[in-house]
């Protein structure tokens, strides 16, 4: 794998996370901030996703990748819960609100796939580049 590929993968994951953050921020401002429990969760997801997306674009430290994956997975779990058992008594149906719901689950799932993609990362004293996972330190 060429060095450009891990960089593109990382930037792709960061971009997806940033889009998720922007969508959650937009929905938070649009009215979700008024929902008990859900409002603070949207604010945390939006600010956390934007912050980690920025840092992920600068560095690929494992703690950032794990945090990014946690934010993306958390948003997806919240989406599923809000269509099934409810979140803090809040329930939505289908892909409402449009188009934010669909875009959000696509970019969050894509971010998880990109973050799970193994990278080649050169280490000191090694001529070859062993495969490491994004989940590894």
């Amino acid at each position, binding site marked *: 794998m060429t060095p450009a590929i891990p960089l593109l993968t990382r930037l792709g994951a960061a971009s997806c996370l940033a889009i998720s953050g922007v969508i959650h*921020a937009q929905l*938070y*401002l*649009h*009215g979700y*901030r*008024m*929902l*008990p429990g*859900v409002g603070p969760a949207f*604010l*945390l997801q*939006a*600010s*956390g996703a*934007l*912050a*980690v997306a*920025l*840092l992920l674009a600068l*560095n690929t*430290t*494992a*703690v*950032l990748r794990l*945090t990014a994956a946690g934010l993306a997975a958390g948003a997806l779990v919240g989406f599923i819960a809000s269509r099934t058992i*409810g979140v803090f*008594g*809040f*329930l*939505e*149906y289908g892909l*409402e*609100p449009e188009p934010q719901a669909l875009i959000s689950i696509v970019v969050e799932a894509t971010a998880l796939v990109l973050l799970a993609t193994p990278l080649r990362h050169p280490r000191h004293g090694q001529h070859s580049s062993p495969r490491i996972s994004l989940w590894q*330190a």
Partner: protein
Amino acid sequence: MSTPEQRPEGMSRRQLLRHTAWFGAAVVLTVTGGEVISHLGGTPAPAAVAADPRALRFVQVSDSHLGFHGPANSDVTGSFARAVDEVNGLGFRPDFVMHTGDLTHLSTPDQFDQVRQMMRGLRTGQVFTVPGEHDSVDDHGQKYRAMFGAGTHGDGWYSFDIKGVHVIALVNTLALEKLGHLGVDQLDFIRKDVAGLSSDTPIVVFSHIPLFAMYPAWGWGTDDAAQALSYLRRFSSVTCLNGHVHQLFAKTEGNVTFYSATTTAYPLPHPGVGPGPIPVTLPAGQLGAALGIRDVTYQPGQHALALRDLRLADRKPS
């Protein structure tokens, strides 16, 4: 060979510091970003809203069931008195208080008289009501309308404007089979009522039974609500507030947000939990946390209403 700096089975101290630094940066940026986003929302401080004469503030109280006797709440009158006390202790005078139905448990004249007397203790601009099915047990709502129906249309529905907000109070408890029902006359009223309104007028709709399908198997929905909501689709902000289900719940459908309120009497099970919507007896000391009131604020220029649900648990009757 392993050293404190570099151990093959774990990360080095340097790596640990690096991870900690990046995680710390993420936390700092998250907190900073959260501050920025929350300020972009422009939600004014509660004190500022209370002092703003343009802001609409009202209270929703629901399902008081005066006359109920049972282990789920052996003193519904005392609970309602605490709710009144809580409204009066909010620290501001609400523009109005809306009771979203089931004021009484069995629609007796004594129960209606008692609830009216108690609501006279509310320190507010006006008191409004919509009927619940318990307020029309044996007379299709005649005693309810005699007590609370002055100035209403049809079987007790009405609307009014206050501080730039259009309020619609609906009756969906009189013709119910299993689900709530509005009926042709009331649907026609809604259509005509909103026909002349600008699409940027905030709309607030009150009803007893939810206008969304919260749990139709228990009758927690209104069979012809879709028709009513179709008249409201063009408005940018529609908020529907209901009672009946005795628990907090929220849901969005496009431009419409639905909020179910809790009760001042006794809790009901969550949808589908147990054989049906029968009163839940909570362990001693836990009832107050399940009861409450809701205050709602609309600040001109804001898209959505701000809701705050308050429990009765922490307040003693005066």
